[in-house]
């Protein structure tokens, strides 16, 4: 009788402990859920504050980020190197042919450069402002299926500002959308929020290069009577006040859905270093819209 009552007491005590734990878990859960909802609301209400907070965290955690992401980058680079070994013979032949073609182009470029200088002198044209380049290391490829951005190790203390263009050696990659002291976030042109005014070389048709998050960006707002063929070069148009005219972007091709898409010259996924370019273009309307919105999805 006595042992039975002790057992019952123990069971009751354990049940009460469990109930307390359940209540504690529930309280904690409600607290963290509310906190998450407040954070989510802040994204919409004060996106600039959220972006500043994100950039501050990125600045503070720059060493940790590099440590975490560098083995992955290293593995990806090595994997690509192994892949390249299989194609070394083919690549060698292709490079030899390209080299010959480039030598011819070099001669042509020299001749055209001399001609251009002579004509400029003749017309007494004002020299364009010097373009400033900053080489920056990509410390984190933070692109996912929902947002295409990368983080570079260079920030406002190195002279970076919002809206500056980001290039690889092959062509345009994107633009700076947020700067911290030591880091900056780059919106890739494949992001669904990216819009870049472009011109198609040859036809001189203007369009907006719109990211889709899924594959290559497409050409939007094309004139109805355009005559764009496959394989035409696309360059920035200089409108919108971010990029000057002529920055190489990619080549056109037609998608199965009938859109004209652009295969970028530069592959942002492969870039370990990028060039941040200050063209000295004054911040125009497009730059202001980048600066004023701020949120990842409300750029």
């Amino acid at each position, binding site marked *: 009788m006595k042992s039975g009552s002790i057992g019952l007491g123990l069971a009751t005590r354990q049940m009460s402990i469990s109930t307390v734990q359940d209540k504690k878990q529930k309280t904690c859960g409600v607290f963290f859920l509310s906190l998450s909802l407040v954070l989510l609301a802040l994204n919409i209400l004060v996106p600039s504050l959220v972006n500043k907070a994100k950039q501050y965290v990125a600045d503070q955690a720059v060493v940790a980020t590099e440590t975490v992401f560098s083995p992955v980058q290293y593995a990806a680079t090595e994997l690509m190197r192994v892949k390249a070994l299989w194609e070394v013979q083919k690549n060698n032949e292709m490079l030899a042919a390209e080299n010959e073609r480039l030598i011819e182009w070099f001669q042509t470029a020299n001749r055209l450069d001399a001609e251009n200088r002579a004509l400029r002198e003749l017309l007494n044209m004002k020299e364009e402002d010097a373009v400033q380049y900053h080489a920056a290391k990509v410390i984190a490829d933070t692109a996912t299926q929902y*947002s295409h951005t990368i983080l570079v190790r260079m920030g406002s203390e190195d002279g970076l500002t919002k809206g500056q263009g980001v290039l690889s050696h092959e062509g345009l990659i994107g633009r700076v959308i947020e700067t911290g002291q030591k880091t900056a976030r780059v919106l890739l042109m494949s992001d669904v929020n990216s819009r870049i005014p472009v011109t198609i070389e040859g036809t001189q048709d203007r369009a907006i290069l719109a990211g889709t998050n899924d594959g290559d960006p497409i050409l939007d707002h094309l004139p109805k009577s355009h005559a764009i063929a496959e394989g035409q070069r696309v360059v920035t148009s200089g409108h919108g006040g971010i990029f000057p005219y002529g920055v190489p972007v990619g080549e056109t091709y037609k998608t199965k859905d009938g859109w004209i898409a652009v295969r970028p010259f530069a592959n942002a996924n492969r870039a370990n270093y990028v060039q941040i370019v200050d063209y000295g273009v004054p911040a125009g309307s497009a730059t202001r819209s980048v600066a004023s919105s701020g949120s990842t999805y409300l750029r």
Partner: protein
Amino acid sequence: MSSLYSQRPPFIKALPIYFLNLVLLILSTQTVDFVAVDNVHVVVFLTAIFYWVVHLPAVLPLWFIFIAGLTIDFSLDSLLGLHAFAFVLYTLVLYKTRRIILSQPFIYHLIIFILSVAFFELLRWGGVSLLSMQILSVLPSLLAVVLNIVAFIPLTLVLRHLHRVVSGYGRSSL
């Protein structure tokens, strides 16, 4: 019915579990390039949440799950609070239903996980589509669901083995 917190293994003994949780969290801040689709983000940490909340909640406290969600939000430039919200909600639902899930065979665990991953991805896709005011392509999200499900079985095997080593937990039904 003993307190869940009294089941917490000693810190040193549970160190491999904490380490693996951390590794899964770090992996969840990375993306994979898959065939024609680049940058697919697979949140493998969901498997850790599912396994530990159902089997041994003491090793994965709610504050850690919240911080893990925020870490992913910060490191992947995601909507701040989105992963934290989804993780905490997922944990609370699992915590409420863990006794029912525990009594089911593995195939039911897999089905529940598939449903939860699909819901999680739908939440992310819907949230981002709504805020960017554009319908995003579903292919990368579908791929993320499939890859997460494919990763679930081997990861569960590893977690189960660790669980057995740390706490002498039972016979596998897998």
